[in-house]
């Protein structure tokens, strides 16, 4: 029970922000909250948010771990393009689905390990290290697709992006399932604990025998793996691999989601759940602006405005002010002479 309330308190700011945003949108666009069943599949804006959030949510899972190690992974948008290109190429070459999936996932892990080498072994700053693959990755994807948008027509693979099962779109299963598995991996083993220790104080952790390098490697590898899954969903959804645009700027949305989720960019304590709520907040804003009927040219500005509000409310400065107001209310009656004393 204590555990539950503590967890709820950790997630409260994100949950409240999400509820407020959903509430605002439903005021602007009546019917936003309705969910209907057509042809045995659920439809509605809420389902759409969960569906469209899939790529960012997947990236967010990996990004949370990388940020917890006090790193950052800018390359995952490009990894989406690479893995999408790999999957599309293999599909058009007629490889069976399991091979396509396995190879794509493998490529994503290799991309993550590459970042791991740069960060953990060569000690390059993560922002620079992953920038390399961010820039080079789209080039690699273009080489794989030979410079064209590689389309395919394979219904089983396309189902990864647009199919549904028991009324729920498959991408939702994929991101929720991935998040669950990785979340359990982190908290049921000691990985999460050791990653947090490494992110907070790598030297102290190493001196206590923690294998910091291995943990950095695993965080970046998981990030690459998540990007690979996202890459397959994006590719399957449009039935084609677009090396230039697949996953473009999504890494920034993922960073934003982690930050909105309250995990510090200084590394340390992390919550995958909170990050995922952050991702849902971002996707709700995207979808909400569309269904509210604003002219699309306002989209990015409105999104930025809402995010400024959310982040301002979470900022240390505001927190201090809140804490100060609380504390001063409590102590007002007690000491009137504080001004003299604290001078």
């Amino acid at each position: 029970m204590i555990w539950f309330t503590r967890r709820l308190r950790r997630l409260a700011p994100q949950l409240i922000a999400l509820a407020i945003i959903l509430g605002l949108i439903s005021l602007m666009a009546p019917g936003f909250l309705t969910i209907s069943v057509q042809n045995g599949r659920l439809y509605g804006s809420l389902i759409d948010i969960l569906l469209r959030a899939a790529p960012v949510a997947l990236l967010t899972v990996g990004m949370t771990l990388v940020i917890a190690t006090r790193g950052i992974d800018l390359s995952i948008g490009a990894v989406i393009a690479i893995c999408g290109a790999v999957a599309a190429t293999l599909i058009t070459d007629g490889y069976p689905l399991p091979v396509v999936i396995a190879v794509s996932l493998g490529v994503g892990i290799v991309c993550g390990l590459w970042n791991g080498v740069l960060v953990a072994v060569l000690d390059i700053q993560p922002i620079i290290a992953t920038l390399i693959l961010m820039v080079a990755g789209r080039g690699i994807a273009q080489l794989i697709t030979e410079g064209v948008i590689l389309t395919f027509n394979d219904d089983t693979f396309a189902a990864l992006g647009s199919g549904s099962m028991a009324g729920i779109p498959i991408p939702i299963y994929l991101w929720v399932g991935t998040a669950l598995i990785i979340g359990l991996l982190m908290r049921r083993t000691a990985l999460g604990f050791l990653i947090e220790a490494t992110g907070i104080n790598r030297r102290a952790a190493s001196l206590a025998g923690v294998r910091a390098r291995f943990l950095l490697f695993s965080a970046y590898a998981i990030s690459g793996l998540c990007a690979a899954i996202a890459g397959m969903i994006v590719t399957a959804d449009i039935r084609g691999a677009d090396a230039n645009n697949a996953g473009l700027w999504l890494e920034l949305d993922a960073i934003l989601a982690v930050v909105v989720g309250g995990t510090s960019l200084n590394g340390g304590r992390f919550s995958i759940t909170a990050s995922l709520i952050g991702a849902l907040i971002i996707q709700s804003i995207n979808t909400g602006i569309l269904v509210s009927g604003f002219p699309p040219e306002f989209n990015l500005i409105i999104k930025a405005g809402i995010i400024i509000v959310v982040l301002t409310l979470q900022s240390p400065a505001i927190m201090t002010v809140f804490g100060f107001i609380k504390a001063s209310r409590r102590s007002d009656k007690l000491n009137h002479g504080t001004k003299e004393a604290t001078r």
Partner: protein
Amino acid sequence: MSGQHALLEARSIGKSFFGIPALDEVDFTLQAGEIHALLGENGAGKSTLIKILTGVYRRDRGTISLEGSEIYPDTVGEAQALGIGTVYQEVNLLENLTVAENLFLGRQPRRLGMIDRRAMRNRSKALLERYGLHIDVDALLSSYSVAIRQIIAIARAVDLSGKVLVLDEPTASLDANEVKGLFTVLRQLREDGVGIVIITHFLDQVYEIADRVTVLRNGRLVGSRAISELPRLDLISMMLGRELQHITRDHQAEPETIDDRGAPSIQFQNYGKKGSVAPFDLDIRPGEVVGIAGLLGSGRSETAFLLFGIDRADSGTATIDGEQVSITSPEAAIANRFGFCPEERKTDGIVGDLSVADNIALALQARRGWMRPISSSAKRELADSFIKSLDIRPADRERPIKFLSGGNQQKAILARWLATDPRLLILDEPTRGIDIGAHAEILKMIERLCSQGMSLVVISSELEELTAVAHRVIVLSDRRHVAELSGHQLTTDGIIRAIAGTGETEAA
């Protein structure tokens, strides 16, 4: 002009950080044309004093006067303008600018609103020639060695300020020749009437260059003497805080149990690393406390780093129970059931944002590997049992460790290692910066642990502490193990003599 006044005079300086006093009633007097060494162990308050004199910190109490008039430097810039210039250990110049730009940064000569490069170049050349430096002032600073950068920094500081020059560990990264060059420059400045304050831990250099020394210990003034009247032995006892002939525990009364404890279980032979510690032999028996003594920079912590595999030895062998082992990383050391409480608790010890319970479980969890997690109930039990047995306060295992006091943090780090059931525990300055109560408890704990058969290596600059807990003390000087004291030789007096190099022959 200032005949009757000292150049710089600080009286009764006090400074606290968060209620913990860092300096208490410290006096410091610097004459013009004097080279004054400021000495003390880590945490003695040297750098706090320097920072107060140079405007980095504001003093809480006391007065500072320069040439007889009181000053209140609030920023480094103000202190500079008053005449007090500083050159820090990490030379505070910009590598990506030229030498001339560095010398005149912020005060470039101008002509028609533009920087007058020619004037800057000529003035830079003239300035550096006074220091015997004939170099291309248009080259980037990064193209010159640390020694030359240091002289450039000194030239800038003297040109800016001109009355007082403060040097923080100026010789730490210089070789013997470069030190000679630096000292020539300092002597010339002394001739010119500049007052020079130098912080260093090389006593040879103090005797070579300084006119006067002031020694601080634990934030208090120990004394200020002319170097010509101060034998080395007295200086060391001032720094380490023991008068000679001071009576300490009688080790003769102790049974000669050391040999009864049987054969050494852990042996390091010819173990060393170039540039860190000269090769040494060290045998440790079960249940034995081996002390390591020496001045700051003598290789104390470096010895610990070698034993624990943080630095890799490049010579010698390590043997445990007759079997040769290779300790090339902390993981390897831990696998051999070693533990290490580092001196720098904040940066090397605690994981600040994690709870006390997590901090205690960390080393054990790391050894078990990530696939075998310690269950949260086992973690709770582990934490609670150590919180109880070591009396860690507040007794709240969920509190982030960064909110605990230094002494309680140290106990939690000790608990982290005790949880791994080590055979050898290395403690580097286990009682530094912690309050008296915790201090005594930690010493008691050391005795209890070794009576249970654990071996300990204790590094400390508190000689009384070492003579109280250690069965044997290894003395280091100049990065070499110079003596080993045990039995009746094991006194603070004996340690000081060994450090000074006078009692070595009889002690060894």
